C-alpha cells in the first residue's frame, strides 16, 4: 500500500458502515416507537427514579442509605 489517503479513506468508510449499522439505523428505527396501548402511567416514585436514571450526569455522593425521595 502506497497511499495514505486511500488507507485512511478506506478505514473511515469501514467505520462509517459500523456507525450506520450500530448507531444510525437503531436510532431511526426506535426513535418513533410509541408505547404499547394499555400501559398504566408511572407512579410518582417511579417518575422520580426515572428522572435519576435518565439524568445526563449521575451525582450520588450520600454515604448513608438514602431515604426515599432524598435523591
Amino acid at each position, binding site marked *: 500500500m502506497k497511499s*495514505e489517503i486511500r488507507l485512511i479513506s478506506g478505514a473511515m468508510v469501514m467505520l462509517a*458502515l459500523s456507525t*450506520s449499522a*450500530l448507531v444510525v439505523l437503531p436510532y431511526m428505527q426506535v426513535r418513533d416507537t410509541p408505547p404499547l396501548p394499555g400501559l398504566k402511567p408511572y407512579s410518582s416514585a417511579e417518575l422520580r427514579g426515572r428522572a435519576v436514571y435518565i439524568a445526563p450526569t449521575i451525582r450520588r455522593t450520600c454515604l448513608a442509605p438514602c431515604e426515599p425521595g432524598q435523591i
Partner: protein
Amino acid sequence: VNTVAILLSAFVLSFVALLIFIWSQRAGLFDRNSKGAEVIFAPGEIGQTEEPAATRSMQTSLQGTIDTTSTAPALQADAGELADRIRADASTAPLVFFFFCCAMVWLLVASAAGLTASLKLHEPDWLAQQAWLTFGRIRTIHLNAVAYGWAPMSGLGIAMFVIPRLLKTPLIGARFAFIGAVMWNAALVAGLGSIAVGINDGLEWLEIPWQIDILLACGGCLIGMPLVFTLVNRRVSHLYVSVWYMACALFWLPVLFVVAKFPGLHQGVQQAAVNWWFGHNVLGLFYTPLALASVYYFLPKVIGRPIQSYNLSLLGFWGLAFFYGQVGGHHLIGGPVPEWMITLSIVQSMMMVIPVVAFTVNQYQTLKGRLSALRFSPTLRFIGVGGLMYTATSLQGSLEALRSVNAITHFTHYTVAHAHLGMYGFVSFVFFGSMYFIMPRITSREWPYPWMISAHFWLASCGLALYFSSLTVGGWLQGQAMLDAARPFMESVALTIPYLKGRSVGGALMVMGHLLFVAHFLALVLNFGPQRDQPALLRHLFRRQVTL
C-alpha cells in the same frame, strides 16, 4: 422498516465494500515475493537479529539460532539506513520516554485499584469506610486507569517510536505530542478524581464526565499530529502493515470518542447500542490495532526475517477494519434493541475468525523453525505469548457472541476473564515486550537485571493463567446456577467465592510482576545496577553520530 431487508442490505453492502477495498489496495496482492514486508530491514539486514533487551551473550545465542536455520549468509547492513534509523530513534527518544513514564504511573494506579476491587469481592467489609474505596468506584477507576492511562500511554509511545523508523524520517512536531500528553494526563487525573467522588456519565467505558473529556479529546488530537506530519513527510513510498494499523487507530479513536461522548445526542435504547458500539470498538479499533502493529514490527525485527505472507496481513487488516466495527451489539443479546442489530453483530463476531486466523497463520509461518529464538529474546517471549493470546481471546470472543453460550456466560465472571485475556494477555503483554525492546534504544542503556525481566514474565504469565482459569470455571458455574430456577440466587453468588479468591491470588502475582517491571524501569533510568561496557547494539554507531 423491514428488518430482513435492513439486515440483508447492510450485509451485502458491507461485503461488497470490503471486496472493493481489498481490490483497490490490490497492488501486488498476488505477488508472491512480498517486497513490502522487507521495508523494515535496511538493505542487507535480513538475517540479522535485533534484540536490545537481551544481554550480549543472549544476543549471540539469538543470532546463532538464526544462522543455523537460514540458508543465505547475513550480509553487512547498509550503514546509511542504519544511521537514518538511529536518527529516527533519537528524534523520538524524549517523547517516547515521557509516554512510558506516564504509562508506568498508570500501570501502578490501575494495578492497585484492580487488586483492591478483586479483594473486595470476597472481603466485602474491607476498606468500606470511604466512599471512593467502595467496589463500584474503585473498579471503575481500575477500568479507566487501564483504558485511558496504561494502554494508550504505552501504545501511543510505541507508535511514536515505530512510525519514524518505518517511514525512515525523524519525528516531526514532537512538541505537539508533549503538550497533548500533558493535557491527556491532566484530564485523566481529573476524570478519575470525579469518578472517585461519585460524579460520572453513567455509561461503562465512558464514565469520565464529558466536560473533562473535551480536554482529553484535545490532548488526543495533539498527540496524533506529529504522526500525521511524519506520515506526510515520509521518505519511503511503501507503507508497512504496522503503519496501516497505527495510522487507522489514530483516526478511528477520535471519531468513536466524539460520537459516543457528544452530550445529549443519545437516549434510551439507542444509547445502549452506542455504548457498546464504542466499548467494543475502542478495543477492536484502538488497542488491538496498536498491539497488532507492534507484533508486525517487533516479531520479524527480532528474528531478522520478514513477515512470510504480506497478502495475508492485508486480508487481516481489512477484515479487522470491517468485521470488528460491527460486533458491539453482541453485548446486548436479550436486551430491548432491534433484533436484526444483534444478529448482525453475532454474524460479524463469527466472521472475525477470518482476520484472526490470517494473523495467526502469518505469525506462525514467520516464526516457524526459529522458535528457539524465544529462549534468548525477552521481547519475543512477551510478544509471542501476546500474539497467541490474541488468537485465543478472539476465538473465545466469537464463541461468546453465540446466543447459546452468551445465555450462560454473560453477566458472570466468565466475561471478566475473557476481558483480561484480551487486555492483559494480548495487549499488555505485547506492550511489555515492545517496551523492553524500546527502552535500551532510547536511553542507550542496557536493562541492568535480566532476571527481573524473566521474573516479570513468569509472574505475569502465571498470574494471568490462575486469574483466567479461576474466573472462567467460576463464571461458568455461576451462569449455570443463575439459569437454574430451582436454585436460589444467593447460591450462584456463594459458589463463586473460592474462584474469586483464586482470582485475587492471580491478580496479586500480576501486580508483583508490575512492581518488578517498574522497579527495573527506574533502575535503568537512574543508572542503578551493574554497568556493562556495550549496552545496546549499534551503540558505536550512535556514538559516532553524536561526535559528528
